[in-house]
């Protein structure tokens, strides 16, 4: 009985153990899967968006930029694409030109000017006698009669102007008319002044009377001209808005216009299809127009261009753009490797991120050149030479505390101590940043190297000392080589940390814009660097949306650098350990 019971118990134990084993295995798989999913969830969007900085549908504007600013040789088929796109834009350019300078504009202007001239001339000409009589009247009567006179004087011109406005409104070609009306309004005072002077040659006027006459004669025409111009203005502003949207999309439409513009972002259209589509939606298909609400305050309202310009020539332009969007931009999928090797242009809107990559490299390498030897020396001192005493324990505590100090404090320290007090450089410089980063990672390096040294088996030490090695000799030829893999791992992981830190370099080394730094300038000049520029692009860029892809590209690059460093750490460790094992 007892034996059977015991067997059962053993059997049960056995099966329980198996179940436990299996469930632990399952649990660890679950944990791994969860971790992998988390990493994917975090990395995948970055990877996809970041890859978009290199692989995208490039429009002809992208190629134009590369050719004209970076002197790239274009493939024949790319040049052909540019030519076709330009060809497709010709009708649009024509439409715009025709719209802004309609053939009948000159005629319109002439008739307006003629009727304007006729009216003004009346002051010293045909109607001079009548005016003389009015002028000689006493005041309240004079003012009333002057008003009447002025209305009659301008009646035919006002009529012409209103008719002109109505006609131009029908065609939607209000731009020349608005210009003419404004020009005439400006001329008005001068012309009236001149005619009154002529008129005075007959009858001498008192100063105050002359003023009154001038004011009275200008007022109705001026008011009419301005009100007519204003009626046109809303329409014109909407057109200008639409046109700037088109220029944002396609770039300036004429060579002269291109000459006028200085900023690269104005000199070229959208280099990427996604951005182009965005601009198409936000600035071409819709526009904002000023409107007065019921309380009379002016508000900006977004309206659909198609509706707003319905039936006008602008509406035709919009239709043409919709129909020829692809033809005018010719997007084609490209791998723009220059993203990593080109300088950025116009606040990262064009070009690549080479200076940031180089800056990150300088800062990381510099901080390691400083921190690694110091850290290794300190670790050797702590683990091999230091006898336990108060000074050493205080030092150890300092190292521990330093490891916990927030990185922004290191940044401020770098500014206050390295730059302002020690004056390692006049202002921000790679050197100051590298020293700050070195201080930041030093505690970690010391700790990891110390652990690595402590982990060297005691037998190695005994063997070395037993053979008559001095302390330094034993450290150099036995202990250090044995600790090297772990030490390197620690150092390389610290390197990844230094590469990714933002706060310490804000005040000591980073600048948002700048060309790639020559090696000789690292002691005096600041540099762009990936972590800082990522922050800068998303927080301080005036067109953050337009450079979102650059930002993602930078994030991906930074992550790739850090991961590559960590991977290198693993590889080096594995390789050195294999070498040691046999």
């Amino acid at each position: 009985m007892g034996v059977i019971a015991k067997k059962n118990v053993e059997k049960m134990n056995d099966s329980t153990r198996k179940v436990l084993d299996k469930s632990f295995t399952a649990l660890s798989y679950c944990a791994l899967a969860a971790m992998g999913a988390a990493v994917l969830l975090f990395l995948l969007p970055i990877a996809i968006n970041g890859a978009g900085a290199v692989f995208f549908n490039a429009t002809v504007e992208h190629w134009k930029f590369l050719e004209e600013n970076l002197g790239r040789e274009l493939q024949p088929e790319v040049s052909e694409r540019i030519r076709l796109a330009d060809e497709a834009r010709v009708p649009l350019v024509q439409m715009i030109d025709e719209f802004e300078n309609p053939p009948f504009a000159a005629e319109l202007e002439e008739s307006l000017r003629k009727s304007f001239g006729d009216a003004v001339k009346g002051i010293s000409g045909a109607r001079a006698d009548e005016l003389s009589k009015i002028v000689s009247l006493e005041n309240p009567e004079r003012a009333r009669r002057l008003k009447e006179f002025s209305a009659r004087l301008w009646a035919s011109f006002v009529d012409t102007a209103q008719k002109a406005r109505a006609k131009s409104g029908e065609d939607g070609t209000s731009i020349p008319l608005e210009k003419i009306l404004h020009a005439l309004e400006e001329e008005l005072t001068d012309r009236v002044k001149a005619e009154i002077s002529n008129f005075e040659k007959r009858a001498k006027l008192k100063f105050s009377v002359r003023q009154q006459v001038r004011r009275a004669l200008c007022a109705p025409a001026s008011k009419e001209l301005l009100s007519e111009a204003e009626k046109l203005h809303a329409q014109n502003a909407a057109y200008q808005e639409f046109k700037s949207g088109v220029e944002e999309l396609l770039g300036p439409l004429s060579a002269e216009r291109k000459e006028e513009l200085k900023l690269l972002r104005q000199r070229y259209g959208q280099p990427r299809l996604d951005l182009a589509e965005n601009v198409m939606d936000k600035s071409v298909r819709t526009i904002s127009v000023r409107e007065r609400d019921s309380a009379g305050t002016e508000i900006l309202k977004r309206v659909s261009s198609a509706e707003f310009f319905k039936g006008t020539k602008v509406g035709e332009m919009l239709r043409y753009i919709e129909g020829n969007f692809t033809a005018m931009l010719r997007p084609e999928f490209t791998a723009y490797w220059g993203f990593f090797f080109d300088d950025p242009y116009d606040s990262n809107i064009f070009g690549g991120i080479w200076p940031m990559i180089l800056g990150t490299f300088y800062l990381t390498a510099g901080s390691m050149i400083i921190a690694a030897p110091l850290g290794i020396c300190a670790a050797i001192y702590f683990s091999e030479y230091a006898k336990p005493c108060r000074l050493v324990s205080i030092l150890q505590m300092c190292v521990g505390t330093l490891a916990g100090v927030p990185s922004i404090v290191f940044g401020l320290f770098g500014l206050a101590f390295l730059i302002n007090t020690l004056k390692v450089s006049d202002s921000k410089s790679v050197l100051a940043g590298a020293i700050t980063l070195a201080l930041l990672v030093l505690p970690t390096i010391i700790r990891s190297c110390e652990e690595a040294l402590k982990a060297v088996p005691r037998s190695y030490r005994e063997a070395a000392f037993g053979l008559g090695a001095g302390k330094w000799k034993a450290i150099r030829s036995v202990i250090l080589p044995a600790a090297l893999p772990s030490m390197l791992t620690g150092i390389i992981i610290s390197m990844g940390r230094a590469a990714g830190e933002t706060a310490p370099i804000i005040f000591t080394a980073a600048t948002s814009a700048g060309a790639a730094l020559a090696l000789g300038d690292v002691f005096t000049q600041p540099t762009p660097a990936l972590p800082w520029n990522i922050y800068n692009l998303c927080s301080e860029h005036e067109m953050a949306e337009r450079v979102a892809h650059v930002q993602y590209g930078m994030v991906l690059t930074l992550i790739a650098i850090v991961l590559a460093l960590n991977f290198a750490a693993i590889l080096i460790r594995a390789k050195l350990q294999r070498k040691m094992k046999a």
Partner: protein
Amino acid sequence: MTQTETLQPPPEPAEKRPAATAAECGQDEDFAVRAENFSVYYGSFHAVKNVSTGFRRGKVTAIIGPSGCGKSTFLRCVNRMNDLVEGCTTSGLLALDGVDIYHKRLDVVELRRRVGMVFQRPNPFPKSIYENVAFGARLKGVSSRSKLDEIVESSLRRAALWDEVKDRLNSNALGMSGGQQQRMCIARALAISPEVLLMDEPCSALDPKSTARIEDLIAELSGEYTIAIVTHNMQQAARVSDFTAFFYEGSLIEYGATDRLFTNPQCAATNDYITGRFG
């Protein structure tokens, strides 16, 4: 203290050691290493208590005793390996050729070159066999390749390892078997041509064949080197040593010529131990 109770009679204090033992010690000049009232403490723990003994020049001295009785501690003092242990202090005299080993101005590095040591567990460096054996010679400043080759070959030959490894001198020492590693450690110690060779249970991790080779080696080396060997193997002590020291709970109980000590122990405790009644 059950062990103490089984002892008949209880171990005498060091000063009252049997006169025969003192007589056997002979003249000072015969001793390469000599301890006089030597004590070792680990902090406040008295690990080796007032030991007076020595290793005769050119002879093999075996140190036997139950586990934890201070054999290793005593042996490691001879080349001051215990300096590496924190809180380890000594008192009394321990002399190498009449010079105090624990003298303040003694050059420890020089001492360790004169007193080589082989440890219980083989501890090759993670380097090639060649580099391991040449390590001590390089430290002494030998840099010419031919000289080093010579030293490496002769040391490996004396450790009876040359034939097995001559074709793979440049492969990692950790790739050898335990017995080969231990013989390489002996070769490494021999390469600095020490005067005294300390061996702390050199065969405890080895198979009988390797053990036999090492015992042969010891026999071969005796005469030229002063050898001290700690062992738990009575037969081995009897086979290889000329003199034997029996330690018990930190004290030296008996010292004498191996033949005499194993056939006619003076102390009951020694007798109990070598006949296997305890320990």
